[in-house]
């Protein structure tokens, strides 16, 4: 049984490394084996400006998304600690409801809300006199496309962060907070000196998970921007990988891109993995 689990989990990784060193196109797919070309795929990626632009775009995208998710999640968690019990119940139900929305459904709802013909967003913004958004197309520029993708992603990711952080906040000992208050510390100082140290392990785990999820986001950017509107000027890493590897049936190159991506994520999430392995070894 254990062997079966190792096989299911380990086999794709071994295969991935093997593929990345091969020329593996449509012809090789039909033959079921590739031609070894050493590090050719990697040198091709690293000399491709599209790769570097995509990497930079993805890093920026991840920074913005993780920052917003963690920031808003933390604010909602702090808010949950201050409201009455019945309000907390309502907010929690709202969060769980949002959390459970399937990603593809989320995409469809957002594209309906932001469509330029009769989307509710343009109507609401115009009604609130924020500007004239009549038939405003939110998908006209790359920046605006990613503003939409970010809103959707953060909306979907905040509930998990907020609920987990609230659980962590409720573990902060009351006596510590009261003692700090008696010593004359203000709210900001108490948060920094008392609350943050207690919740740091949870914060780190949440940041690691968010980094992994956002760095490799595919469904939302691919579908919200639209499969037909993906181009080298707006690629994210996963989309680049999908189009170069699967779309162009160049599986060796795709595998090499995957490895680069996996290494970056592994470096970024090393903390989480180490902490989890420690838990698992107990």
């Amino acid at each position, binding site marked *: 049984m254990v062997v079966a689990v190792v096989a299911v989990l380990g086999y794709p990784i071994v295969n991935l490394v093997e593929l990345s060193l091969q020329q593996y196109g449509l012809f090789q*797919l039909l033959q079921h084996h590739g031609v070894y070309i050493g590090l050719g795929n990697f040198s091709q990626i690293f000399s491709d400006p599209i790769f570097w632009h995509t990497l930079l775009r993805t890093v920026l995208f991840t920074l913005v998304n993780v920052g917003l998710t963690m920031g808003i999640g933390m604010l909602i968690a702090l808010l949950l600690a201050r409201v009455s019990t019945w*309000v907390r119940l309502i907010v929690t139900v709202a969060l769980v409801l949002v959390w459970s929305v399937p990603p593809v459904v989320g995409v469809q709802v957002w594209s309906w809300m932001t469509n330029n013909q009769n989307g509710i967003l343009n109507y609401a913004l115009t009604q609130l006199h924020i500007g004239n958004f009549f038939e405003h197309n939110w998908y006209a520029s790359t920046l605006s496309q990613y503003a939409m993708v970010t809103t959707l992603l953060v909306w979907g990711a905040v509930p998990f962060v907020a609920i987990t952080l609230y659980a962590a906040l409720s573990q902060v000992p009351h006596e510590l907070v009261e003692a700090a208050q008696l010593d004359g510390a203000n709210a900001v100082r108490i948060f920094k000196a008392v609350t943050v140290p207690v919740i740091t392990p949870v914060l780190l785990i949440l940041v690691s998970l968010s980094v992994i999820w956002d760095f490799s986001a595919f469904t939302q950017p691919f579908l919200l921007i639209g499969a037909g509107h993906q181009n080298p000027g707006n690629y994210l890493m996963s989309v680049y990988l999908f189009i170069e590897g699967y779309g162009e049936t160049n599986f060796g190159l795709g595998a090499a891109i995957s490895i680069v991506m996996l290494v970056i994520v592994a470096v970024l999430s090393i903390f989480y993995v180490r902490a989890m392995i420690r838990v698992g070894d107990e």
Partner: protein
Amino acid sequence: MRRKLSSRVGWNTVGLVVALFMVFPVYWMIATAFKSDSQINGFTPSWFPTQLTLAHFRAALATPGFWSDVKNSLIVVSTTVAIALALSFFAAVALAKYRFSGRKLIIVLVIGIQMLPQTGLLIPLYVVLDRYHEVEKLSGLVLVYLTFALPFCVWTLRGFMIGIPKELEEAAMVDGASRLGAFVRILLPLLGPGLVATSVFAFITSWNEYIFANTLLGAGHTQTITLLLADMTGGERAIDWGAVMALSTLISIPVVIFFLLVQRRIAFGLTAGAVRG
């Protein structure tokens, strides 16, 4: 006192506004699904559905391929859940109860795979499945979903198992129960919540999955329900938003129900007990 009360009212108001903003897209989906076409397509959106209609739900159910896609999704999901549950159960027993060589390797693999971006495995899995002629087949998709569901299931079940004191099992065996008897009467009931949580997790991830279904089933006639939903807005023809929202609502219902049941335990599994929710 008075100041404290008024600040409480202030925070409550902020809380309700936040809840309203968060939940609005969900409300808008359901409201649109029940609105008449003239209400949906008018240039002035109406905040509430005034003439309720089921026409969009009928249209969604009548979408070509709807029933066969639902059937495909259910086959994939139930097979994944059943196999994931059986495999992860035994793996978790091994990890929680026994020390053996290679144990560390398995822990590293389980956690490592969970951390890998799933898109990173798209290429190797596609090539492997193609080699064994499992592309454009539901069985191939089940294999892929197992790769993703197993780590989480093993990990979460292991957490539940460690929480059960060894003495319970031993006491039952001292009282004359066999190892199997002790297991069925003592361990299984205590593991119940863990088994429910892991099956729901496996259910939701495979029901929601898009990119692998899209790649592996591809242009074939076999589709899952998420692919059907994504395709409804993919083409160049005019989009029937009422039907799209009705189908979205239908797809979300099982997920929401199951998710409400086990939300706490899934958060617990993802953070491996770092937080006691």
